[in-house]
């Protein structure tokens, strides 16, 4: 995006700059040449006039001396000519004249002594000069007309400055214009990016404005049609999902009333099982057990439907993870070995949810490896705290590892254990609410390892005993909801 804009801008500016450079250099060279040519032509015409008209008409003698020239009034006439000095070499070896002649190139003097009209661009006393020389026929004296060409140089300097400033202004204008053009060209792309970003954030109603009847316009229309379809599909999916969830929630609620009656009835029946005839007694026992199972199932469905309704409130508080997990393991599966880190590991979390997760993991371990003891490990790594429950059961085929957190998923459908098949799904939901997740791994020595991962955000407190191990003897930590520390 940005790359395209920069390239577009750079290309346009470079084109304009190149054009300006070519035009500027070209016009400068042309003006430079024509100014010099004109100046030289004027000077040459003047010299020719002097040599062929002015001097012969002044009645000089053959081989005139400097005094003759003065007498003829020529020196004064030359002095009146603008912007030129005249040096006359009468061949008398005058040292002042010789010094001047030394400033001219020998080639110029040779040409002049050969009888031709010659010129030379040179610099005398720091100023540019045009020297035009010619010999009065047949053999002298030699006249050198020295013209001051500063005006040309000044004009050229002015021109250079003007061209440079003009070029810069042009480049800046080109830059602005290029940005404007680039923005215009890329505006549909920007609009599409914004729309895509809004869709990504969940605003499925975002659309690209169809601003033109060109390729971008067609593309925008196609994009919008795609978004329409997407929105339609997703809202239909959401509606059916919401319907599903409502159904589960409704079913659980509707089951609640008869279940309450059943639980109460079974609890009375249980007290009187001994009074029943033997065949009815066994049936009664089964009934009591099944009511308990049904109760667990409905409880868990209700718990899940609360997650689905996103009605979860989280009350985070600083918790010493090691001692909390030890406590949970001691109450839920006494005798389970728990490995905790040497350093106290404090996390901000909700103990009730953590207890639910760990208890469900322990239940799962017990169910799949009833004979062997499970093991719990608490550790911290890379800003995460891990609580791992390891069992020595049969493990899970690798391709199904992720699926064990699905609702009612059973690795071996023929097994009908006591569990509802919702325990791990519930644990995973709680983990997500706590900002973490659950992942399952097969252990190399056999068995399953399920790791709860939750973020460590709390710096380790010291001093006033925010989570003092001395207090972990069973008293629940007050929730942050109403407990100022």
């Amino acid at each position, binding site marked *: 995006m940005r790359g395209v804009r920069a390239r577009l801008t750079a290309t346009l500016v470079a084109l304009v700059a190149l054009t300006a450079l070519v035009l500027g250099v070209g016009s400068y060279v042309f003006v430079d040449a024509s100014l010099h040519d004109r100046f030289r032509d004027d000077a040459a015409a003047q010299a020719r006039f002097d040599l062929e008209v002015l001097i012969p008409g002044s009645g000089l003698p053959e081989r005139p001396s400097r005094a003759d020239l003065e007498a003829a009034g020529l020196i004064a006439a030359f002095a009146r000519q603008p912007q030129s000095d005249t040096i006359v070499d009468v061949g008398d070896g005058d040292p002042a004249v010789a010094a001047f002649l030394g400033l001219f190139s020998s080639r110029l003097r040779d040409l002049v002594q050969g009888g031709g009209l010659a010129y030379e661009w040179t610099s005398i006393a720091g100023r540019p000069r045009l020297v035009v020389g010619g010999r009065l026929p047949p053999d002298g004296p030699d006249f050198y007309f020295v013209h001051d060409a500063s005006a040309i140089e000044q004009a050229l300097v002015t021109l250079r400055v003007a061209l440079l400033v003009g070029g810069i202004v042009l480049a800046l204008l080109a830059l602005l214009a290029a940005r404007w053009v680039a923005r215009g060209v890329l505006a549909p792309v920007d609009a599409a990016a914004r729309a895509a970003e809004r869709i990504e954030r969940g605003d499925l109603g975002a659309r690209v404005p169809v601003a033109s009847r060109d390729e971008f316009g067609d593309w925008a229309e196609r994009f919008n049609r795609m978004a329409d379809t997407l929105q339609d599909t997703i809202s239909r999916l959401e509606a059916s999902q919401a319907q599903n969830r409502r159904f589960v929630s409704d079913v659980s*609620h509707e089951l*609640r*009333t*008869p*279940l*309450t*009656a*059943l*639980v*109460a*009835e*079974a*609890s*009375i029946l249980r*007290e009187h099982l001994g009074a029943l005839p033997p065949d009815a007694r066994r049936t009664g026992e089964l009934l009591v057990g099944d009511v308990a199972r049904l*109760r667990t199932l409905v409880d868990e469905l*209700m718990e899940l439907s609360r997650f689905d309704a996103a009605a979860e*409130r989280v009350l985070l508080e600083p918790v010493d993870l090691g001692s909390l997990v030890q406590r949970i393991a001691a109450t839920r599966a006494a005798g389970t070995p728990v490995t905790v880190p040497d350093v106290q590991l404090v996390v901000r979390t909700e103990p009730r949810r953590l207890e639910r997760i760990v208890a469900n993991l322990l239940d799962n371990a017990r169910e799949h490896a009833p004979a062997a003891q499970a093991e719990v490990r608490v550790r911290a790594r890379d800003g995460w705290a891990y609580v791992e429950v390891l069992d020595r059961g049969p493990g899970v085929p690798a391709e199904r590892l992720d699926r064990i957190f699905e609702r009612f998923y059973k690795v071996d459908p023929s097994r009908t254990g006591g569990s509802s098949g919702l325990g791990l799904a519930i644990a995973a939901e709680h983990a997500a609410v706590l900002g973490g997740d659950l992942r399952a791994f097969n252990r190399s020595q056999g068995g399953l390892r399920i790791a709860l991962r939750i973020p460590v955000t709390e710096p380790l407190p010291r001093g*006033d*005993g*925010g*989570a*003092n191990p001395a*207090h*972990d003897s*069973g*008293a*629940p*930590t*007050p*929730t942050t*909801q*109403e*407990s*100022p*520390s």
Partner: protein
Amino acid sequence: MDGNILLVEDDPSIREVTAIGLRNAGFDVTTASDGQEGLDRFRAAPFDLLLLDVMLPRMDGLELCRAVRRTSTVPILMLTARGDTIDVVVGLEAGADDYVKKPFEVPELVARVRAALRRANREAAEDGRLRLGELTIDTAGRTVEREGRDIALTRTEFDLLVELARRPGQVMTQDVLLDRVWGYDYMGDSRLVDVAMQRLRAKIERDPSSPELVLTVRGAGYKSAR
């Protein structure tokens, strides 16, 4: 220690089996199937304890609870469908002393009813005055005042305050408070104590966000100021 119980529950099966369970435990049970009928029966005869379903036709359990509280301190237990903190708060606000979460087993319910009745009886026998900070607590008249002004507390809030005021500076865990105030060892739901404590503080503390009379001991429980 038998008693006269009014049970208001709309579902016939739950109503009947609950009544059977309570009668088996030795209580006299009168039943009503909606809130209005419950209120009528309550006004017609004296009861030792009320057991109210929250969701009731005609007048819901919370409304019935409030109506009863206007004239009586009879112990009230709510039967709630959910154990959410919000339900506990709403129930306590309406003046209930305790709640029993559905589904319940009858022996559990009976234990809770007995505990509530025991409390009600115990309170009648008590007599004396306690001081906590600027508060004067009259345990016989069941009133609390600050600088001559009465503070209205529910039964549970009052009991909680008395329990803490009797042992100034002594830390009491949520479990101990559950046992002493509510009268049973109810595993796991320390929220009941925390919610009641929050409500108590809102009434007795000058600034509930920095309490001075009842202090929190992090990781342990609560204690009253010395």
